[in-house]
């Protein structure tokens, strides 16, 4: 199973080296990878439908309980099949859609990276590895959305999408860590058995909120939905694959995966119903005001995701059943509609639905695919969409509270979605072919075949629901912790309320389609409300944030070294001073002090003289030399108090510092303008304050009861364990060697920094000359 997941990553790496062979005719061969994976996962269907769960664990970081453990159950299987199946069609479609593109190989690389990440996500049984794959999907989708990287709008949408989904990723990590600390494991299957522990924990609500934010950002729920329409800047295969069938469903997957762990509480259900409900109605209404085909589809996708969240929130068996069926329904018809839109865009060069009509005369197979998908999306029998809609209504009419509101909301959403499906799938193909599109060419086989396969499947599954019933739908429901064995999918359930609601939906929706045509006027009208939309609010927020951070940076990073030092010292003095005045514990035990000898006194006098000379001299070089005197005096003190290692190092460092100073000062302008009187007094006070604080701190350290355990251990074991007699050095190179390794790495980085800064500066002055 690991190989299956890694295959996509390996292929992406392979393309880095062998990409140029896949830019031309061979490109279509890359579809073999998702195709093969699809066959591989499909071979598990008999096992999974008989109730088996296949799991596989590879150790990764066992010390932290982080494993690469994979679990294939009904839910994972459904998603894996969707990812690889639609992936296969999209890979093939891309070969024609982006034929001859300069970076086609790169596109395939990103696409297979994404596919692998997505597979890892839905198969992971470990929360941490799930998080890693989750982030990988965000990152690979960033590259895919921004694929047309010469277009600023596309770069901006890629960044927005990354920002929002990355923001959600943080919450997923937080949720994972929180759940890990509650249960003591990161394994999702082990969490299943600890439902009571989690529900009883005081952090339960917090954990649920974290998981919700992660899922809502990924699955474009209100108020995080706005990145999805923006992401439509991506090439159409990306929209098809990521933004209708797979990535946006990752949030849904997360919610479904955690339903048996966190679900079935009032907070869980109510929040999901409210958020899903708002999202489905809000964005279904929004879809009415779009003229761009992709815009219509984007909003109807958000709305469909809202329905799924809402169904998970209902939390009943029939709701789970409905959500499982609706995931399949939506993946089939929405992917088809996107593919169809892509074909129209590719052939005619426009996606403006107001100018498109009569295209059936040119591209009959595409028209068939579009119309079949529209029927499925509308939920007209005998499509699988009808099954999905019936089940959704059934679940809604059995909602426990606010049944009327819920039913009205879902029926309204479905009516509007029917309109959206018709606009995208039927409108471009019926009516008269306008003059402008007379010369449009028919699309390739590779382009229309995937669309028609998906569209026909949408009808076949509707007529023969047993094809998906025990293979896909029921295992999903049992993964969600419910038992649906006695339920049977069928087109006909007799005359009941649900059928009546269906009839109303179809009738009103079709009427709406005939009376309300998408128009540019409507689009501008809704544009007036743009300023209160979550998107503009977030954009304004980020704008003000960057203004504020520019202001903040300019205040503190003003380019004057003396100001930096002043800020740092002031902060330190205030902070440490505050703590020390809060609980003064400085005590000096006079009896313990050793006698001051004459040579110590002499060194201190030299030291003080050096300090005064440094402060009052008018020559820079003299000041540096005097600083050197101070440093050497301190070295002597180290020697007196038997710290030869320290003294040696300090001595060498001091020598080098003086050399450095001299090197730099040598080149400075000769005339020294001293700071004025006030500044000198201010600086003097500040330095005295810092000196006092540090001095008091040192005394306080002495006053603390010393814990010599560590020191004793080192002293005792230096020779036994590390064959060394110089304890200081043994600590540096052996006991705490990793620290030293990091320190020398930091040293090297700083040297590279100095080198880079100065050399680059030299180059830029060269250029200006």
């Amino acid at each position: 199973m690991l190989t299956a997941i890694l295959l996509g990553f390996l292929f992406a790496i392979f393309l880095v080296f062998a990409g140029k062979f896949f830019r031309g005719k061979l490109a279509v061969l890359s579809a073999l990878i998702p195709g093969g994976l699809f066959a591989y996962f499909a071979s598990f269907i008999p096992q999974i439908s008989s109730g088996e769960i296949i799991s596989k664990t590879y150790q990764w970081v066992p010390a932290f309980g982080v494993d690469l453990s994979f679990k294939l159950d009904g839910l994972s299987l459904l998603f894996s099949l969707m990812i690889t199946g639609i992936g296969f069609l999209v890979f093939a479609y891309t070969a024609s859609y982006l034929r001859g593109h300069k970076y086609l190989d790169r596109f395939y690389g990103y696409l297979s990276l994404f596919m692998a990440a997505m597979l890892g996500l839905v198969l992971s049984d470990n929360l941490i590895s799930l998080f890693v794959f989750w982030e990988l999907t965000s990152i690979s989708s960033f590259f895919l959305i921004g694929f047309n990287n010469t277009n600023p709008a596309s770069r901006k949408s890629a960044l927005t999408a990354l920002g929002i989904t990355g923001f959600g990723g943080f919450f997923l990590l937080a949720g994972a860590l929180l759940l890990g600390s509650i249960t003591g494991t990161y394994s999702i299957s082990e969490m299943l058995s600890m439902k009571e522990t989690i529900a009883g924990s005081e952090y339960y609500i917090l954990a649920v909120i974290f998981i919700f934010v992660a899922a809502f950002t990924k699955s474009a729920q209100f108020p995080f939905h706005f990145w999805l329409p923006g992401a439509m800047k991506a090439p159409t295969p990306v929209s098809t694959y990521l933004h209708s069938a797979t990535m946006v469903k990752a949030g849904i997957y997360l919610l479904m995966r955690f339903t048996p762990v966190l679900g079935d509480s009032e907070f869980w259900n109510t929040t999901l119903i409210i958020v899903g409900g708002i999202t489905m109605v809000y964005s279904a209404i929004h879809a009415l005001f779009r003229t761009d085909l992709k815009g219509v589809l984007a909003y109807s996708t958000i709305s469909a995701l809202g329905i799924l969240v809402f169904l998970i929130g209902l939390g009943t068996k029939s709701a789970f059943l409905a959500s499982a069926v609706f995931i399949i329904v939506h993946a089939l018809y929405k992917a088809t509609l996107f593919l169809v839109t892509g074909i129209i865009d590719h052939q005619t060069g426009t996606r403006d639905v107001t100018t498109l009509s009569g295209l059936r005369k040119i591209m009959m197979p595409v028209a068939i695919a579009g119309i079949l998908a529209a029927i499925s999306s509308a939920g007209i029998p005998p499509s699988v969409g009808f099954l999905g809609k019936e089940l959704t209504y059934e679940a809604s009419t059995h909602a426990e509270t606010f049944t009327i509101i819920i039913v009205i909301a879902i029926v309204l959403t479905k009516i509007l979605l029917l309109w959206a499906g018709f606009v995208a799938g039927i409108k471009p193909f019926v009516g008269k072919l306008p003059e402008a599109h007379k010369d449009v060419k028919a699309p390739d086989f590779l382009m229309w075949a995937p669309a028609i396969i998906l569209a026909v499947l949408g009808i076949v599954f509707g007529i023969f629901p047993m094809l998906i019933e025990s293979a896909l739908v029921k295992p999903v429901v049992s993964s969600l912790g419910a038992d649906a064995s006695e339920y049977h999918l069928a087109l006909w359930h007799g005359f009941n309320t649900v059928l009546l609601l269906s009839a109303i939906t179809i009738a009103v929706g079709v009427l709406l389609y005939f009376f309300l045509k998408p128009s540019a006027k409507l689009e501008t009208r809704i544009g007036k409300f743009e300023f209160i939309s979550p998107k503009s609010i977030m954009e304004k927020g980020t704008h003000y944030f960057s203004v504020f951070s520019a202001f903040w940076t300019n205040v503190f990073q003003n380019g004057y070294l003396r100001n930096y030092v002043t800020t740092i010292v002031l902060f330190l003095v205030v902070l440490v001073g505050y703590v020390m005045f809060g609980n003064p514990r400085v005590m000096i035990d006079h009896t313990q002090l050793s006698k001051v000898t004459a040579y110590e006194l002499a060194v201190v006098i030299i030291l003080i003289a050096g300090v005064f000379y440094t402060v009052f001299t008018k020559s820079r070089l003299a000041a540096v030399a005097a600083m050197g005197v101070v440093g050497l005096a301190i070295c002597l003190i180290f020697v007196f108090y038997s710290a030869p290692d320290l003294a040696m190092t300090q001595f060498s460092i001091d020598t080098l510092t003086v050399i450095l100073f001299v090197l730099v000062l040598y080149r400075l302008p000769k005339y020294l303008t001293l700071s004025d009187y006030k500044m000198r007094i201010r600086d003097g006070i500040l330095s005295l304050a810092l000196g006092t604080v540090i001095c008091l701190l040192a005394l306080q350290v002495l006053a603390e009861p010393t814990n010599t355990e560590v020191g004793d251990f080192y002293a005792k074991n230096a020779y036994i364990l590390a064959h060394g007699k110089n304890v200081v050095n043994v600590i540096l190179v052996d006991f705490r060697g990793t620290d030293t390794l990091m320190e020398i790495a930091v040293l090297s980085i700083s040297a590279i920094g100095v080198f880079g800064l100065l050399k680059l500066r030299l180059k830029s002055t060269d250029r200006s000359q």
Partner: protein
Amino acid sequence: MKTLILRTASDYLLPLLLVFSVFILLRGHYLPGGGFVGGLIAAIAFVLHAFANGLDNTKGLLRFHPGFLMPVGLGLAFLSGLAPVIGLDDPFMTGLWFPEPFPVIGNVGSALFFDIGVYLVVIGVTLTIIFTISESA
């Protein structure tokens, strides 16, 4: 500062100081010293030579950019830590020792190689910084 006395002296001082720095490096395990101080002393030796004979002469003497010592030293230090992981499946940075002490040097183990790595990095860092600054200032 190209005085004759300093220049003549530096010709003798450079090898002496370098030998001294290696001595400090090796004695570190038993007596005050070690890779860090040793590296600083070696760097000072080169800086002194540069003062006396000019930077270009010192660079010519070195033949390669001192910055190359940084990756070499870091690599050596890292490998000395990695050796027990690869050889014996022990944790990173476990000390490995030759059973018998070597003449003059004494006990030799992975810690010594680690210290040599530190020594090289310190020389590389110090010289890179000082040379860069004195070239560009």
